[in-house]
């Protein structure tokens, strides 16, 4: 990975002791890490480990209890609205409007990110071409197969060329072929300079990431390239690394 070898890597996300506490429950416990420009950063952990909470803080959906973090150079506690202009987000829950057509969804999201009408038209055409969905452009989104919806949702999440795109289990329930295509889209986006911050439960996908972190009970227990982690934990596969760490978890997943 020549990108990683570069010493002047630009930090896009930086978290220092970032914590979110709900009453007595510490969902995310003082996590510290950095993510660099153009990187695919895998954010792993069992259900209930605190991944989604951490991601929501980085997206400006949730205010940190303690610690600080910056995304694209803006502070998550005080400049969340500025962050929102510079990120894309695709959540576990389906994020497109099912009762709007493919082009209407593209138009709406591109419009609220402030793209002009000619640019929207241009982007829509390019996107339909790229996704091979020209014939479906006037189909309601609810009529599309899940894999197509997810690819469309991803394309819409990066339609404004954000600095970072947050993907919360984007490929859950998607077939292996579409999953593969989905990851090719992520690679294409990161090659254009977007940083991808991905959570996933598929360990083969973890191998596609440049670096990964594994969260257990709200803390980051391991961070490094997939190769580093495998050698550190004496494992053949990422699956094994994950199991060795996650088995020690005390929280019951959701």
């Amino acid at each position: 990975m020549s990108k990683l070898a570069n010493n002047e890597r630009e930090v896009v996300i930086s978290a220092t002791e970032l914590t979110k506490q709900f009453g007595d429950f510490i969902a995310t416990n003082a996590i510290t890490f950095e993510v660099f420009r153009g990187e695919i950063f895998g954010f792993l952990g069992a259900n209930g480990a605190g991944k989604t909470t951490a991601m929501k803080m980085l997206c400006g959906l949730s205010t940190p209890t303690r610690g600080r973090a910056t995304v694209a150079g803006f502070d998550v506690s005080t400049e969340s609205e500025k962050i929102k202009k510079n990120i894309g987000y695709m959540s576990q829950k389906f994020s497109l409007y099912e009762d709007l057509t493919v082009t209407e969804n593209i138009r709406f999201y591109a419009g609220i990110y402030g793209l002009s009408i000619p640019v929207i038209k241009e982007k829509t055409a390019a996107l339909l071409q790229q996704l091979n969905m020209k014939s479906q452009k006037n189909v309601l989104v609810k009529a599309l197969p899940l894999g197509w919806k997810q690819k469309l949702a991803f394309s819409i999440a990066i339609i404004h060329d954000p600095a970072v795109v947050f993907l919360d289990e984007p490929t859950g329930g998607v077939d292996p072929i579409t999953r593969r295509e989905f990851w090719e889209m992520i690679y294409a986006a990161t090659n254009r300079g977007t940083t991808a911050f991905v959570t996933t439960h598929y360990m083969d996908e973890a191998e596609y990431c440049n670096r990964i972190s594994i969260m257990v009970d709200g803390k980051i227990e391991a961070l490094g390239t997939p190769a580093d982690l495998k050698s550190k934990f004496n494992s053949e596969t990422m699956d094994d690394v994950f199991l060795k760490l996650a088995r020690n978890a005390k929280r019951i997943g959701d």
Partner: protein
Amino acid sequence: MKTLRFILEKEFRQIFRDPSILRMIFVMPILQLIVLPIVANYEVKNVKIAVIDHDHSPVSKRMINKLEAGGYFKLTGYCVGYQEALQYVEQEQADLILEIPTHFERDLVKEGAAKLFVAVNAINGVKAGLGASYLSSLLRDYNSDIRMESFPATKFSQTPQLIVTYANWYNPFMSYKLFMVPGILVVLITMIGSFLTSLNIVKEKEIGTIEQINVTPIKKYHFILGKLIPFWVLGMIVLTLGLIVARVVYGISPVGNIGLLYAFSAVYLVAVLGLGLLVSTITQTQQQAMLIAFFLMMIFIMMSGLYTSIDSMPYWAQVVTWFNPVRYFIEVMRMVVIKGSGFADIAINLGIIFIFGVLLNTWAIISYKKRS
């Protein structure tokens, strides 16, 4: 402004693509306006009456004929004794029992006075009360007929009498429809304005699209305006439809200025939209929003003066109605439609609704949060 345009475009597309919203906006108001005023009627007709005539005299016969001829009473039983008549009541076949004692005619002629016995089934209080008072006014009428016949000489005579005649202003024929239709229209506008709005927003919460909206740079006021403007427009459409139904079906056209109704409605909708927004910020699912809506709507309707006069409520209940926006619009609607009131007459109500609008919307905007 550009952002708002995209949001409005999306909202209108979704509304016009959702058959249940369209049904609620177009079919429900028209049906309700056509059906409700006909059934929500205080006139008591077809009061079932069982008669026990122990006298069998021409006088008692004439009295019974008069009862039947009036149109309000239906003679369902002609009984021999009180026990038999009571059975009619028990089997729901009679609401009233009229017992005419033996020697009724003789007492009336000889002694100048006779007694009748009336028993009322009071399970349905309204019917019992009105039925009994119809019956007694009918009997009073009959009484004066008899007096005139028996003592024609004293016709213009000794006993001074007070005769009351009255005129019904603004609604000369005391038509319940003229009274109910404008009120029901207000309830419909309230439902569209507040509860459709809250359901619409909560639906986005349920599906999860609101989270997606919250990570975009959409400003809070953009999102809120994007939700409120379409339902404000729908509310005005319902008002228009309602006025058309009132005109076509009931022949009711506002005596006052229609522009005044629209102006008041414009402000009123802002207030109830604020209420809808507020409900949506405190609920997570459409089910919760529905339950709150149901609860509020019951109170709003019962305490609005739609069915029962606010002046006859106990004082504490009257105080509660001060906080019911529906009450103010029903007053204005009736004043303008039936009486032809002008701006000066409704200015106070307009001011109160304006304050409602400011308070409810401020509260709602403060409670709506893009982040937690």
